[in-house]
């Protein structure tokens, strides 16, 4: 066990997977000589060379499509999108191709591809660089959507993603890269579809993922001082979704608050709330709450950005509203 950052945990995971399997390689804009726009792939070029750490032109559509084709050809590519915002240029290859190929051809072809993408707001990067788009992918059958909140999960889920035979969208919040945590040396696998109950509680269930998990934990601590005992669940993967763990918790607490950074409307919170209603309506003492980003393009101004993003105070308020 070592204390390392989320960024280092990912770097370690990529390196270990490339060591383990010749077929694994990484490609993307600036992943090689630059070391990755967020330095996640730093040092890998020196170890593995240009064949396996491939800098690409700024061609997101073809970059992702080439990853899909290479996966069909028997490799296990990791494609890094510089950020998820640019991934929108590749949506055709992700949604119309990667997600469909196994099904549409009667199960003959597989697409064991990992698409890594940094995302999220909070750095005053404005409307085109601050989005959280996990729901775009969750909506589409055929994709796995993985969204780790901690360094240990970043490593463990990445390794599982590389070994999975489906296309995996692997979303990394840009605010998490510097976060430190205990991470096992060497082999460490976290299975898909197993939420992590980070804090047990009896009064309310806070369901979250990615960076918002930290805010949820802070809110839970503050609530404890006010006599409210909140349970905090980190979903880790949105597809598959571990609805069982959520429902079990809600049956115990009678209240649910979903916290996420995507836009409020049509977001992950709506889907999770609907599933809670379907499975645990009678256990609820109050409507499921959503704490999310406001439905606005992200503003640049610091105060406006903070107002648009979900905050610890928003979570506390939402919990107090239902307990």
């Amino acid at each position: 066990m070592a204390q390392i950052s989320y960024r280092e945990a990912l770097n370690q995971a990529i390196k270990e997977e490339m060591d383990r399997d010749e077929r694994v390689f990484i490609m993307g804009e600036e992943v090689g000589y630059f070391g990755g726009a967020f330095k996640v792939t730093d040092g890998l070029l020196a170890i593995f060379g240009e064949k396996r750490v491939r800098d690409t032109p700024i061609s997101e559509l073809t970059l992702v499509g080439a990853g899909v084709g290479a996966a069909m050809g028997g490799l296990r590519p990791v494609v890094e999108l510089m950020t998820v915002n640019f991934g929108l240029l590749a949506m055709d290859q992700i949604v119309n191709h990667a997600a469909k190929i196994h099904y549409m051809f009667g199960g003959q072809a597989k697409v064991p591809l990992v698409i890594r993408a940094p995302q999220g707001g909070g750095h005053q990067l404005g409307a085109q660089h601050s989005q959280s788009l996990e729901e775009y992918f969750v909506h589409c059958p055929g994709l796995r959507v993985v969204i780790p909140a901690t360094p240990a999960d970043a490593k463990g889920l990445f390794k599982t993603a590389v070994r999975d035979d489906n296309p995996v969208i692997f979303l990394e919040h840009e605010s998490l890269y510097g976060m430190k945590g205990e991470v096992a040396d060497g082999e460490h696998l976290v299975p898909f579809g197993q939420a992590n109950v980070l804090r047990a509680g009896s009064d309310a269930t806070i369901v979250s993922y990615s960076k918002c998990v930290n805010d949820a934990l802070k809110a839970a601590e503050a609530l404890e001082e006010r006599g409210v005992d909140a349970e905090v669940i980190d979903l880790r993967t949105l597809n598959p979704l571990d609805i069982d763990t959520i429902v079990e918790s809600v049956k115990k607490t009678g209240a649910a608050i979903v916290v996420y950074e995507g836009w409020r409307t049509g977001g992950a919170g709506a889907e999770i709330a609907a599933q809670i209603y379907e499975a645990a309506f009678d256990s609820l003492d109050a409507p499921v709450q959503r704490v999310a980003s406001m439905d606005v393009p992200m503003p640049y101004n610091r105060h406006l950005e903070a107002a648009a993003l979900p905050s610890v105070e928003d979570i506390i308020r939402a919990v107090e509203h239902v307990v």
Partner: protein
Amino acid sequence: MALEREKHLAERSLLTLSESNLLDLYRLMSLIRRFEDRVAEMYTRGKITGFCHLYAGEEAVAVGAIHALYDKDYVISTYREHGHCLAKGVAPQKVMAELFGKATGVSHGRGGSMHLFDTEARFMGGYAIVGGGLPLAAGLGLSIHYKEEPEVVCCFFGDGALPQGAFHETLNLCSLWKLPVIFICENNFYGMGTLTQRAICQQELYRFAEPYNIPGVRVDGMEVLEVYGAVLEAAARAREGVGPSLIEAVTYRFRGHSMSDPAEYRSKREERIWQERDPIKRFRRRLNERRVSGEVLDRVDREVDAVVEDAVRFADESAEPPISEVAKNVYVE
């Protein structure tokens, strides 16, 4: 452009290919034409539904190109892919069954006319997004390059894909990385009802190779041996590790864009001119020059008729996929 040179290569192929090879080319073209004619009939009878785009008129492109490949080379195509799939050696029974939506179809009834696929034949799929197959071809090329294997990828697409970003991104990437991909643009002058003149700023489509620093040639896509010769050269180049090529095959679809299109945007006169260039009739004449008799070719046609008949019967008698399996294969478990 090297039209004259391509013609010369074609002459040479006529002399150097064995008679059985030439007959194979004829058989495949005849198979595709007769297959498509029956597909049209089955469509009208409601046995085949959905979108259905026929390849009649363009047979020489798929057959000539794929004859220049080895079995282990990859082929990837569009929604107008019955011809490429058959030319790559997939059983007509399984193709017809897919069009009928049956469990015995190549894609187990999940794909239909536009989404044929066969792992064993290395037919890597028909894709219904214009330009969608090109990035995949780059990826297949990358997998070959990475594993240092000798195969090539042959990627077919229409003139309609040229204005797509995917075309330009992919040619740049494949040229940059010297990937073993042969891009074959089937220029049939139309994307649905839109003439290439109204969609593309440059009518000599092979010249789109120039900015990407790769060879570009235009061939007569109604001459099977011309296509064969050009692809043979491009494949040799790809195998040597020199990189991709662009081949523009000038051709014509004898029917509308899809089964529901009466093609009223084309004149009867234009259609007649192209009918006179029918690749199958033309090749018959070429074979006669090689002293292959009309009777021999008629016999091939009759054999092909029986194969198509059998494919229809097989498709018709096959079972529907069970509804209980509708959610199978969304994910690899």
